[in-house]
């Protein structure tokens, strides 16, 4: 088990080092996420007021769209110089490689969300500081569920020519439960009278879905990557 986490740590650290050098995924993902939020704000916000209950939806749309972009790029990088084959050839538990890639992606998405959440709060007058712990839990758990499935699908599709089109087509239907829980839980916190109990219910549901998605992804990564 120690070896599993050691390999995951090395893969994550390598991904982050490559990203620090290139800044390719972070900058494109961030630019895309901010653009999505700005476009929605131009379309919806009138005289400084946004309609009720839209902020949560827009936040999660931005997270999911930009997350899909990041997922595709992290495995695309392994394809360029065929380094994915070198990773798979290593005498390690292959799910450890998946875990490392997932952790690297989660850190990138967390950085994007650190910009997105204040921006949504500012443009849509959402009370992001009312329940910061619960909001952070919803975002962390929702992003984990979404990224767990997305990382697996991105790895599966890395050798497929139409991978850029297929990734969202496969990913969004499967992650609908996570998206619903994320949006509904966040909306419960952002509404005029926040409903803590409802947010807690959706957090519980996210934990349930995350456990299923992460377990299935770890279980299927090895057979999926063996041609």
């Amino acid at each position: 088990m120690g070896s599993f986490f050691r390999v995951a740590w090395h893969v994550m650290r390598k991904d982050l080092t490559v990203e620090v050098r290139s800044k390719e995924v972070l900058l494109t993902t961030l630019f895309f996420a901010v653009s999505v939020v700005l476009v929605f704000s131009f379309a919806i916000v009138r005289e400084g007021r946004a309609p009720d209950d839209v902020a949560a939806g827009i936040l999660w749309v931005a997270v999911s769209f930009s997350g899909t972009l990041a997922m595709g790029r992290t495995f695309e990088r392994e394809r360029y110089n065929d380094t994915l084959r070198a990773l798979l050839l290593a005498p390690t538990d292959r799910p450890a490689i998946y875990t490392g890639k997932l952790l690297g992606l989660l850190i990138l998405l967390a950085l994007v969300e650190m910009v997105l959440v204040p921006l949504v709060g500012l443009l849509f007058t959402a009370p992001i500081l009312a329940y910061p712990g619960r909001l952070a839990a919803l975002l962390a758990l929702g992003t984990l569920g979404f990224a767990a499935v997305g990382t697996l699908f991105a790895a599966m599709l890395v050798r497929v020519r139409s991978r850029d089109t297929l990734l969202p087509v496969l990913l969004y239907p499967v992650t609908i439960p996570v998206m619903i829980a994320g949006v509904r839980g966040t909306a419960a916190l952002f509404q005029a009278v926040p409903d803590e109990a409802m947010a807690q219910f959706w957090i519980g549901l996210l934990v349930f879905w995350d456990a299923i998605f992460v377990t299935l992804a770890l279980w299927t990564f090895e057979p999926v990557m063996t041609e």
Partner: protein
Amino acid sequence: MTHLRTSGASAGQAPRTSGASAGQAYDFRRLAVVDVARHYGRRKALSQVAFTCEAGEIVGLLGPNGAGKSTLLNILATLLTASRGRVEYGDRTAAQGGGEVRARIGMLGHDLFLYPELTARENLIFFAKLYGLPDARAAADAALERAGLADRGDDIVSGFSRGMRQRVALERALLHDPRLVLLDEPFTGLDQASTAALVARLQERREAGCILVIATHDLDVADGLLSRAIYLKNGRVVGTDTDSRGLSERYRIAIQ
């Protein structure tokens, strides 16, 4: 074609040599490809390929484009599974050996398997850690020394020439002292000096008891280097050769 006996040390098992990844004890001295076939849908990439290799041999896979050389290398590397037949590493197949077998395989692909954004040293340290080598930094330093790039170790790989990248990639593949070394078109894009250095390194590995399998089109370089040539055409073995001199002429006859 040869079908091998596969039990015990006499069937190709050997004690570990040096520089191994931590906790990996399995070793072998014989590789047997037993009636391997690989299909992609209805297309046959390989049909009934069978041969054996012993420690201390350099075996060339020769054939035109699409002959199945890369597919066979990927099967030997355990990255592809055979549709039929099996590959035996000593007394184990890839499915039986898993990580222990993979720990004894090193591969140099045509695409070099290096991260261009990382330095040569960072690439080598990363893979040394992935293979569980006890002192990754020392292993990387030694590999850079062997590659003749000790003074360029902290330069990012994307700034290297093809020859320099190839040297780093070869040392990456050999970091964990693999028994089986697989090389896919290793001489492509190299100048004479780099080719000579690569040939010398491969001969040194052969003398150290490695099994080297090389897929190449470069018959001039392969001439005299190979212990044995296996000619592939349309996924089938169409000939084998134990005299690698005058290879071009015999290749022409075998492939025609």
